[in-house]
């Protein structure tokens, strides 16, 4: 810690020499109708050609010499505000911006400032407001954040209709998903076809494919940071909707006007209500549904303090008659305190809880079997932001997460032929300490660099096994409660440099290292509720990713078009795969089923976004390659990763036809993923058997799809119509190789397509 303080002091002393008396303007930037804090709003001081932006809690702080200034506050989608400030002492200026009405005539945007995307060293990241993506057509008509981000370059769907995603060649378990700072361990509903994030409750979405600030860590490939809405501080409002799959209801309002507010948002599928109406008893006794409930409340205690409480719970329930049932879900809770130590030092302290669990139960006559598994976290987190001056901003903090893993337990009645079984719990403490510095070195050069130290202590009680090359145990060491079984730790440096070429273009370069101490056990290609997390241990080393990227950012037409071209190379060490036929469930010795190797990915990504006017939207294209190399797979030769996909193109367009009608369309094209197909066949045990010669040596056929959407806006009601896969292309979900039913001497390839065109309609309302 002393080292870090020393480092801090050093940094402060190198900042430009102060010759004038400086004062600080600070405050919060909010939405005028709801009082919601605005994230990333720009504060620009014309005379000095400098400024800042608000943080994720809407707070800003800017320190400049005394003087008379015109200060402009702006954020996309809102009317900018310009105020005159006579700065003779430090002052608090809370600003409320009002939503800009939908402008249908082409607007002229004056580019007097250098846009944020050009100015910051940040690369590979996207900020999305749920409002922006409301009209994008999505399968089943259900707004889904995870499916929308799959339309961005470098982000791939883990499968048709799936909410799981791969970022720049990383695995689906290498994405850190944070909901109000709480880790969400399994973001899938209904076997991956829906995500757990209810768009109605989400205020801000930020996806980082790399060069994430040192504040984040723990996953190799990306960070998805979701902020829940705070609740309307001024009025009571409600919104809701009835869709094809789920119905939604959100209610929010002040607890004390302009002081405290709350929001409650729920969503539930209702297909099962129709099952209940069935004539058949078997159908009536079956269940299939999921729900999400988001809750948040906050209270402003004074100018310097505000407390927040947010919670999420969601669950899937599947029941087959009264014989069999599975249910699974996440619970998260965040208690947070924002405090201003001064008008320059902002702090956020959080106490966070997260949990994922699943339960399975069987009844077979008088036989009763129940299986459950879970992961549970308690996380204490402390973050500081120090707004030194317009050129220097510091962030530092620490976090400690205590993980409890319950890998699996079988409970069985006496009459059962299965014996009770409990796989030993595992415990770990994951800690991190970080500091980062955003530094505008000159008008042209900006830096964002930082260091993160992460540590992972595997704690007892537990057994540490040593395996031979065949996966048999050769020795076992037992540890007592809280005894250190293994410690991993290391520095994760991050640096991003921006060289501003001119008002509308810049060159960026970044390097970052990430470590991952948690591994998702899964042998399947799509998400299942039984995918559980396993800590790094003596046998399972933490994953390490090093990524370097270079980007050219350029805006056109007065910032109406934002474009970027990024190239990257990412190397991932200590990657996990499994032996053939691996038994990963309820297996005390699951580590014997794992094999280790490395993966690497490189590619180029192009992103073009049109921000204003009747037509808005984006085009994203990525060309990339991802390969893996494991001693125990494919005879030790490198092979393409399953998520390796050469070309990936998405075009998303929205057309504001009138005040009433908005039309939208997406077109997605990608070349096939790498896949393992048989090359030959043979006859054994009375069957024709597929013969495989190499891992992922084939490609799925190219995939393309057009989705159409239309929204009819009314005062209280709005209708959303969508058509998924409008031209009904039969895209291959899987290709099966099997015996011809009619001629058993022949074998054939069968394409399984899940969805041809699929229409849906959603009615939304508000009051």
């Amino acid at each position: 810690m002393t080292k870090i303080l020393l480092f801090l002091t050093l940094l402060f002393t190198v900042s430009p020499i102060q010759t004038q008396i400086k004062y600080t303007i600070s405050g919060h930037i909010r939405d005028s109708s709801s009082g919601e804090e605005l994230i990333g709003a720009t504060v620009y001081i014309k005379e000095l050609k400098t400024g800042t932006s608000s943080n994720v809690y809407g707070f800003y702080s800017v320190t400049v010499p005394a003087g008379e200034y015109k200060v402009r506050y702006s954020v996309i989608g809102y009317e900018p505000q310009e105020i005159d400030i006579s700065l003779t002492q430090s002052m608090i200026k809370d600003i409320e911006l009002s939503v800009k009405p939908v402008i249908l005539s082409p607007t002229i945007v004056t580019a007097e400032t250098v846009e944020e995307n050009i100015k910051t060293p940040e690369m590979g990241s996207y900020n999305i407001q749920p409002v922006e993506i409301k009209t994008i057509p999505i399968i089943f008509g259900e707004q889904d954040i995870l499916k929308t981000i799959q339309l961005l370059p470098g982000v791939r769907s883990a499968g048709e209709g799936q909410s799981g995603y791969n970022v720049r060649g990383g695995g689906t378990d290498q994405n850190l998903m944070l909901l109000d700072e709480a880790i969400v361990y399994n973001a899938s509903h209904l076997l991956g076809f829906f995500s757990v994030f209810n768009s109605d409750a989400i205020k801000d979405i930020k996806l980082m494919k790399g060069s994430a600030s040192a504040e984040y860590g723990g996953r190799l490939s990306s960070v998805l940071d979701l902020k829940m809405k705070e609740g309307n501080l001024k009025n009571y409002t409600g919104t809701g909707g009835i869709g094809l799959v789920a119905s939604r209801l959100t209610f929010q309002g002040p607890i004390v006007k302009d002081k405290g507010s709350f929001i409650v948002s729920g969503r539930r599928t209702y297909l099962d209500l129709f099952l209940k109406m069935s004539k058949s008893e078997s159908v009536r006794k079956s269940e299939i549904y999921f729900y999400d409930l988001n809750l948040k409340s906050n209270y402003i205690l004074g100018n310097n303090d505000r407390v927040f409480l947010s919670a999420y719970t969601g669950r899937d329930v599947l029941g087959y008659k009264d014989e069999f049932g599975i249910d699974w879900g996440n619970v998260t809770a965040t208690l947070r305190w924002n405090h201003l130590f001064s008008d320059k030092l902002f702090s956020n302290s959080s106490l966070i809880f997260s949990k994922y669990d699943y339960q399975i139960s069987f009844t077979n006559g008088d036989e009763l079997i129940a299986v459950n598994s879970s992961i549970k976290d308690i996380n204490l987190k402390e973050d500081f932001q120090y707004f030194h001056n317009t050129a220097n901003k510091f962030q530092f903090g620490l976090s400690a997460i205590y993980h409890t893993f319950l890998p699996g337990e079988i409970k069985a009645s006496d009459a059962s032929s299965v014996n009770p079984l409990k796989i030993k719990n595992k415990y770990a403490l994951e800690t991190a300490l970080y500091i980062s510095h955003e530094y505008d070195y000159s008008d042209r050069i900006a830096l964002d660099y930082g260091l993160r130290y992460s540590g992972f202590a595997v704690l007892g009680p537990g057994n540490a096994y040593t395996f031979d090359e065949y996966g048999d145990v050769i020795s076992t060491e037992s540890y007592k409660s809280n005894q250190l079984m293994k410690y991993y730790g290391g520095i994760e440096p991050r640096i991003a440099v921006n060289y501003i070429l001119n008002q509308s273009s810049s060159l960026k370069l970044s390097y970052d290292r990430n470590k991952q101490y948690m591994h998702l056990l899964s042998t399947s290609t799509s998400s299942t509720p039984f995918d559980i997390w396993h800590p790094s241990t003596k046998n399972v080393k933490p994953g390490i990713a090093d990524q370097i990227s270079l980007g050219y950012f350029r805006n056109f037409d007065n910032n109406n078009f934002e474009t970027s071209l990024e190239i990257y190379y990412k190397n991932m060490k200590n990657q996990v795969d499994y032996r053939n036929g691996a038994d990963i469930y309820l297996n005390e010795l699951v580590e014997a089923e794992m094999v280790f190797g490395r993966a690497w990915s490189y590619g180029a990504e192009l992103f073009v976004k049109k921000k204003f006017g009747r037509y808005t939207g984006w085009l994203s294209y990525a060309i990339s390659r991802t390969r893996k190399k494991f001693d125990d797979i494919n005879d030790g030769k490198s092979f393409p990763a399953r998520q390796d996909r050469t070309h990936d193109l998405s075009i998303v367009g929205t057309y504001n036809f009138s005040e009433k009608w908005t039309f939208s369309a997406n077109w997605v094209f990608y070349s096939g993923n790498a896949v393992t197909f048989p090359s030959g066949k043979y006859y054994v045990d009375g069957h024709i058997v597929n013969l495989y010669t190499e891992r992922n040596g084939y490609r799925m056929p190219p995939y393309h799809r057009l989705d159409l959407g239309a929204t009819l806006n009314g005062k209280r009601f709005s209708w959303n119509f969508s058509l998924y896969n409008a031209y009904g292309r039969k895209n291959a979900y899987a290709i099966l190789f099997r015996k011809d039913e009619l001629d058993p001497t022949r074998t054939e390839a069968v394409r399984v397509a899940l969805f041809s065109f699929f229409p849906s309609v959603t009615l939304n309302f508000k009051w």
Partner: protein
Amino acid sequence: MLRVIRFLKILKANRPAQKLGLFAIGLFPLIGLSCEDVIDINLNSVEPRVVIEGTITHGWGPHPVRISKTDDYFIPGNFTPVSEAIVTVTDDAGRSFDYQEIEPGIYQNEYILGFAGRTYYLSVTVEGATYTASSTMPETIPIDSLAYEYQPGDEFEDEGYLLHCYFQDPEGQDDYCRIKIWNGNTEKWLGGYFLYNGDWSDGNYIDYNYFWNVFEPGDTLTVGLMTIEKQIHDYYLTLSQVVASKDGEMPQGVPANPNTNLSGGALGYFAAFAIDWQSIVIPSAE
């Protein structure tokens, strides 16, 4: 999704799980979403590889060893048998048995008396290359009894009779079994990989009722309970995931060739197993 089913199969509750999986997946075809089409696809040609399937059961032979070669995927017809191989089995009592080729690609020796607890070593030499494997025959686990149960049938499952196979898992040892069902009238094996792994049920009286089949009145069924080694259980388990005759199953993870116990790069397996038989007749409706 079907991996869910597999997991639940492992949970030894394959029947309801299968139905639940189908129930969840069933929603897609129900609303007319999923469809299957036979397509043309180009697959690489493969250098033919040797396939060996050898078994030794307790008691007298024939204990066949079948040797054939692999084919390219879309070539129709039968597989090429491999003749003029040298096939030898030795056991841990030091005896050695040479096999005769009785028809192309099928080798046997009727004079081996299979014993539980004995380890057998197979050696096959084909075109100058030698492939070896060993397998130890486990003790027989007897079938206690067979029974049938009437299932009324509803939206999810057919009306008919379900089969139960009862046996006692011997306490204090790792037991692996495979159950095969034959139609008693035609002596035709009904197919399928019904495997049992005693990890979670050591020492229990087992009611094995996880067969996919639904039977009709009048069916005569012959059930064989094979006791096998772990390596053979793993072979059948990994084999069941890549047989070309199983329809409807989506690939779970990445498919791979089964975990064979043969060395030298041959496909197939060599298993010594014990087997116990019983038959049952499902009575015709009066």
